[in-house]
């Protein structure tokens, strides 16, 4: 058992020593965060259940978006570098480009995608919930509908005095002081 673990450790160390891709660590962090952050949020006893659920789904979705974006953008950048760079610089350049791809993903792509995609998804989740609630309450009444007549429509229009325009003084004739 112990030897098997040591052998595994040696193998991982050997592979990471030769090629430590910048995507490995960010994807590992995103994967564990995607599991742990929502779990911790749901374990919080101070928050309301509805808020907890909302926050947990949001956090999970953020990391779910992050994993493929890190991988995709990293690999795509490396492939572009492999096509563009001369043969002798390919190996070093591809790895550096992969790192730059990961940086762009962290700075722009993931926050942008999260801002654009998460809100509609969350709205859909919560609108659906409201929809199901409305369905339960949607009871058809058998009672006949009584027509309600708008009696105010037939009444004559009366110009009522307003407090702002009301004046006790007469509105015609000559006045002392010209007021």
């Amino acid at each position, binding site marked *: 058992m112990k030897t098997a673990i040591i052998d595994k450790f040696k193998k991982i*160390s050997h592979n990471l020593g030769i090629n*430590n891709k910048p995507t490995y660590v960010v994807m590992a962090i995103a994967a564990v965060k995607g599991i742990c952050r929502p779990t911790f949020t749901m374990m919080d006893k101070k928050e309301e259940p509805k808020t907890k659920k909302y926050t947990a789904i949001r956090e999970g979705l953020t990391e779910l978006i992050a994993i493929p974006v890190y991988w995709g953008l990293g690999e795509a950048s490396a492939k572009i570098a492999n096509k563009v760079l001369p043969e002798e*610089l390919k190996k070093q350049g591809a*790895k*550096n*480009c992969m*790192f730059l791809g990961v940086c762009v993903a*962290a700075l722009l792509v993931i926050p*942008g995608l999260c801002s654009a995609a998460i809100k509609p998804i969350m709205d859909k989740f919560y609108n659906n919930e409201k929809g199901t609630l409305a369905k339960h309450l949607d009871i058809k009444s058998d009672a006949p509908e009584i027509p309600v007549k708008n009696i105010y429509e037939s009444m004559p229009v009366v110009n009522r005095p307003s407090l702002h325009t009301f004046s006790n003084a007469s509105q015609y004739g000559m006045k002392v002081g010209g007021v």
Partner: protein
Amino acid sequence: MIQGIARFLTSNSLNNITSNTNSQVLMETTLKSIGRPGFILIDNDIENDTKKYAAAKEFLYQATCLLVYAALVVPVFKRGAFKLAKKVFADSGIPNFQSLKQYNHYLKLCDSSLNNRQRTLEKEIKGVYKTDSKGNKVKKLVKDEYDEIALNELNKENPDKFTDLKGAIEFGNIVGSVFGLAILAPQVSHVFIHPALKFLGLEDKKPKTKNNDTKLDKTV
């Protein structure tokens, strides 16, 4: 222009950052602490107070991540992995590096040319004195701390970087990063963020969620 970009993309300094998990994570977390609050602030669908609150919270979370990372990963996981690797790879002909710092120094020397390397080894001194054969006190050279195997390698045109040892350190770094950023940082931030937001005067402005349950739903 294209040559300049190619030179930057293949530069040694960028390569040093790329091959080091520590700098990768630090860079990524720093970018996150700029990008995420930035995108919250430019979102026009959110109210001003809510934007400020959410952006400050996200920034503080990423700052906590950086602190946790700096405090935990390098001193604990990286050094722990180095010690473990020294034991595991004891029979693999790896030099007896006294510390992680010494191994990093060795890697730096490996990246320079043979001439530069030898010049550095002859000149670079350690702030510790030693007594020579005549009994005089002379400053100790950094070279004196390396063992035979390491010195032999450093005199070669392409010295062995002992990638297994490097890989083991990177593995420790990844494990530490995952533990620090995904498990420990959310816990620490939970304790730290709310007082910090209160101190900044943003906690009171926290948007109250609409309590739909208390409203009577009149649509039947």
